[in-house]
């Protein structure tokens, strides 16, 4: 199964989770998502998602000046974003639980359920 297609639906909650962990700038978030195991995530998708979440009011931004490098625009989660993340996490858990049970009925993999973010 092509994970990029799957990812499109849940990139919001993935990005929110990463940001909630720690504020980050564009490529930093991409890096952390990939380190979490989402190798196929495209950086353009992440940047666009960050922009959309900010426009929706779930994220705040601030600029960090750097002496020898470019200024970085950092994203941080706010109260609205935290609430959104909680809702989406719940939705995901329900959905993924249902899907897992559905597709694993009678399979050997039923015992192992991978959750995003778990190393």
């Amino acid at each position, binding site marked *: 199964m092509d994970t990029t297609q799957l990812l499109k639906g849940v990139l919001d909650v993935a990005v929110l989770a990463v940001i909630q962990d720690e504020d980050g700038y564009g490529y930093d978030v991409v890096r952390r998502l990939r380190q979490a195991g989402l190798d196929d995530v495209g950086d353009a998708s*992440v940047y*666009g998602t960050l922009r959309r979440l900010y426009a929706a009011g779930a994220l705040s931004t601030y600029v960090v000046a750097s002496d020898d490098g470019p200024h970085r*625009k950092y994203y941080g989660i706010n109260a609205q974003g935290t609430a959104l993340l909680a809702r989406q996490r719940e939705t995901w858990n329900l959905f993924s639980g249902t899907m897992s049970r559905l597709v694993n009925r009678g399979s050997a993999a039923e015992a192992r359920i991978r959750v995003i973010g778990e190393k």
Partner: protein
Amino acid sequence: MVGAVTVSGRVHEFAMAVRAALADLPVDEVDELTEGLEADLADRVADGDGDDFGDPVEYADELRRAAGLAERGAIATKRRPVDVGRGVRDAATAVLARIRSSKIGAEVLELFAVLGPAFWLLRGWAVYELLATIVSNSEQPLLPGADLRWIPLLAVVVCSVQWGRGRWLPWRWLKAVRVLSSVATVVAVIPLIGIGVGNITNDVWAEASSSYTVPTAQSGVLAGGTVVSNIFAYGPDGKPLKDVRLFDDSGDPIVTTTDPTQSYLDDANQNGSDTYLVPSQAASGQNGWDVYPLQQASLDANGNPVPSTSRDVVPPFAQIQPLIGASVAPTPTAAMTPKPSAHPSSSGR
């Protein structure tokens, strides 16, 4: 390091291509989406992902899709106006920056800024003049005369001043109107002033012409601009002549009255006296008005001269310098009443 230069060049190139693919979106939107792009791409390279970023157009598509913006081509119609406006604004900003950087340029720009309000007034006047010319299809004076046209002029001037202050602009297109009117002012102000001044000189000329009345050729005598009522002739001996008839070079008799049919003439040079000049009763041509000097008479109740009251008018001089070689009569004629005055100068009138 040559490698680094090449890589950053490629990063820049890719970022520009991505922005180009997003050019149909509003400027601020594109900036927000791509302001960290170069830095993020550089990070990607630094992480060892190589510098092959793929197709910038696809990248831009993915970017705008994830951001929830319209797909490429969905808002194609807006493209040209945005581009032109942005291009003009960018060019203007660049030119301004260069002017400001030179000392003279900065001074000149400051001068324009100080003259701003004066220009707003001028713009209001110019727009009014242009509109008035178009509406009335005629040339306009510099300022309206004492009539209601002052009201629209003041209204337009006030509007221009408010626009200069940045007020009274509830709609975006009014800003374009403001710019157009400023340009029109600069272009048209000299011709408008020229036309206005030209009309002033025309008016002055017309008034001067109307007050200058050319005397009719047939009757009336002007000497040096003053009306002549009576003519006194003197012979070579310096003595006054009577019953003289004069003719001009066309053969027309010289007549001081403008209306030979009238029975008397107000003597313009006898201030306030109630004598009236009357034509000779002995003449047949011009009703007697061509015989000089004219006599004076009193008028009856109906305004008609009474012949029995006719008498000679006192001439200006009893005697003038005889001409060289003329014979002089020893005594004055009994009919003349000499005026008790010194000898006149020979220059006469």
